[in-house]
């Protein structure tokens, strides 16, 4: 089936209710195209979505999917992949979902290194609750709940990932369609946890981190001689306070995914339904 899969096969018949011009349209298109390009089809793909505008993605895509509770999408995705390593698992969420309520899970998902991809639609604001500061909002970003700005530094997701032992760290921009698709594809193809922070502008509530801002300021690493396999270089880039980068910031080509380390190679959905598994009586004998 995969040879005939078009990216539109990943589209559901629900029309997105995102605001016109929302960055999430481009983010989602790139995800669907990358999934099709890597030979996946909706029946072997599992998408886990978080809560918020970004979390609606599971409804607008067509695949096996679950829309989880706030901040907990990553452990759900890991559970799916461990139980059936044949599935292509993609987790999607926003900056609030991933770096605020889900920050603890993020750190542990990174170090667990399950072979799945994690796409965070980072618009640096809470959109669905109508414009409050998010963990990636700038220190002076004024909102109704932070009239003087959050007055605390934003979370640096790339640095957090690197410090937690990430094997793949990338950043993309939803409006740069070709480059975004390419970066998501690389995250899917990576053997391990493929993390992509996507600048996905909120046109309704964020008038600072706009399309124009990212278009003018992002440095495309692919147009430089940057080597994404150099962890020291990655350290410098993710901690650079003056510039923001697009592209793969770090990839460990030696990465061995969790499933391989733990010998998970077949679907746990298949169980012998005729009774207890063969050899189960040995479990009783152990207690003599």
């Amino acid at each position, binding site marked *: *089936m995969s040879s005939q899969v078009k990216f539109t096969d990943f589209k*559901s*018949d*629900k029309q997105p209710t995102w605001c016109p011009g929302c960055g999430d349209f481009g983010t989602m298109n790139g995800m669907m195209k990358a999934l099709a390009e890597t030979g996946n089809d*909706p*029946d*072997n*793909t*599992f998408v*886990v979505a978080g809560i918020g505008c970004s979390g609606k993605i*599971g*409804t607008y895509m*067509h*695949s*096996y*999917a*679950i*829309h*989880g*509770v706030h901040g*907990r999408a990553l*452990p*759900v*995705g*890991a*559970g*799916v*992949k*461990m*139980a*059936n390593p*044949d*599935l292509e698992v993609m987790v999607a969420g926003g900056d609030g979902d991933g770096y605020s309520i889900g920050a*603890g*899970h993020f*750190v*542990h998902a990174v170090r667990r290194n399950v072979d799945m991809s994690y796409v965070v639609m980072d618009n640096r604001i809470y959109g669905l609750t109508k414009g409050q500061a998010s963990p990636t909002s700038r220190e002076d970003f004024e909102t109704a709940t932070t009239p003087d700005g959050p007055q605390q530094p934003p979370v640096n997701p790339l640095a957090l990932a690197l410090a937690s032992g990430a094997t793949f760290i990338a950043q993309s921009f939803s409006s740069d369609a070709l480059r975004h698709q390419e970066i998501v594809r690389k995250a899917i193809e990576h053997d391990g946890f493929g993390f992509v922070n996507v600048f996905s502008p909120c046109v309704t509530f964020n008038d600072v981190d706009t399309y124009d801002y990212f278009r003018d300021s992002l440095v495309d690493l692919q147009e430089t001689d940057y080597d994404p396999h150099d962890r020291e270089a990655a350290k410098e880039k993710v901690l650079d306070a003056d510039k923001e980068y697009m592209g793969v910031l770090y990839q460990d080509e030696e990465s061995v995914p969790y499933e391989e380390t*733990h*010998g*998970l190679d*077949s*679907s*746990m*959905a298949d*169980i*012998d*339904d*005729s*009774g*207890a*598994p063969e*050899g*189960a*009586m040995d*479990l*009783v*004998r152990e*207690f*003599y």
Partner: protein
Amino acid sequence: MPADFNWAIGGEAGDGIDSTGKIFAQALSRAGRHVFTSKDFASRIRGGYTAYKVRTSTEKVRSVVDRLDVLVALTPRTIEENLDELHEGSIIIYDGERTTMQDVEIPEGMIGLDVPLKSLAEDAGGAIMANVVALGAACEAADFDIEHLDSSLKKRFSDKGTALVENNKQAARLGQEHVQEHYADADLDYDLDTTDNDYVLLNGDEAIGMGAIAAGCKYYAGYPITPATDVMTYLKGRIENFGGHVVQAEDELAAINLALGAARAGARSMTATSGPGIDLMTETFGLVATSETPLVICDVMRSGPSTGMPTKQEQGDLNMMLYGGHGEIPRFVLAPTSVEECFWKTVEAFNLAEKYQTPVYLASDLAMAVTEQTFEPDAFDMDAVEIDRGKVVDEETIGEHQTESGGFKPHEITDDGISPRAFPGTEGGAHMSTGLEHDEQGRRTEDTEMRIEQVDKRNRKVETAREREDFSPREFGDADADNLIVTWGSNEGTLVEALEFLEEDGVDVRILSVPYLFPRPDLTEEFEAAEEVVVVECNATGQFADVLEHDTLQRVKRVNKYNGVQFKADELANEITEALAAGEGQEVQA
């Protein structure tokens, strides 16, 4: 009462109390004696009083009693803590050379056996074997064939080399000989018969883990918490041999979400925790139920609220399991009533979860989790395990559950409330699940009619279960008695033993032990037939008594215990007698 024998070893945490106790319990079990063990322990790694108690008989034993025949006391506090249970003629084994035990006084009427545990252990090859010297002395005191101890020592130490096994055997012999030489005249009139029976000895957490593997569970995610951790410890290293996997998650929130993910992928999946962990999991519990995901969640209860008393017994989470979570959510709540039932109810929990596509709470408790009990091996007859995966569709049958445009309907409105289930990878089955209210295809909706249809559909599963499943209580005692005693969970064994005390006092009772807490059996007829109804449970407010009053529209009497210690048979018999004699509305608290 069967002529039973009660033994304990007590000291400070870190003294090897647990492993020594277990070696003795296994020796008794291997000698064909029934064993029931219990533990007193505090929530600390080293120091503090801790004890391992063994009750043994040639007949089945189901509870602890207030009696100690032989006590190995490693600290003076061990004697103080057990003074109420020691009696005239009780034997206390202690090491008078130990600094803290030099001035110890053996209570009047009791027999002190001063055995230089440490120095005899050194003679046998190492001070670390002091407790084994005490076991040898205990064998002599109880006239128990020391060769059974050898077999237990071999099981415990054989993977560390034959030399160590031999040294331990020697240490036990030195303890035995010391008692023979120095206390030849003492009145040690215990006599532990052996039988040819083969028993297995295990605790509730182990039985739950074994039940999970037997039921085809392949995925377990958990976070360490007393007293549920042993479920994870049991599964780790065993479930892998059956194609399964254990994950120690970063927290309980992750644990239940990992388990949910695995269940969505089609695995039989489970998590276990204790009260504080259930609090954290409740958020995702609602999603599990609304997305109609089969999942087994085991709550090994301990004293609450908040962090409460982590190493003490309570059955305080019933309301949490029955009602926890916002909104209205169908679920099953099963309560095993013994270590053996921990196994069978776990198997059943997986079947119910998949047949009805709901979360299932397995309500165990500390008393069962840490209690080791002997059973005939065929109590865990693997050939009797049945597996029912419910309405799973495949590529051939999926067409019957699709919309005209080919969309799969994981929440199809059906007469029995149960919808088809397609595992990921099934062609044509791709679908969305969500905690948002959804239509038949799982897509978000706020349509008022669909909302009602989906709520009714989910609730209809409970009615279907009532029609298809047998939720009968377990019955003991005199079926025609006017006094009806009702209980749930781990109290069953104690209550059955209390029967003998009640009979001695001429009090006839009928006992119903209820393993299905939701949906639960309708006990209206039984209540109406009884003159007095007493509900026994280990909590302060009588949570189960409340729901039974609600169900039957009849007031009940209550016996509650919430000091952190499980009921004892003789004590419970007294409480019941008192409750039966008390006037309407009076409560009895143990």
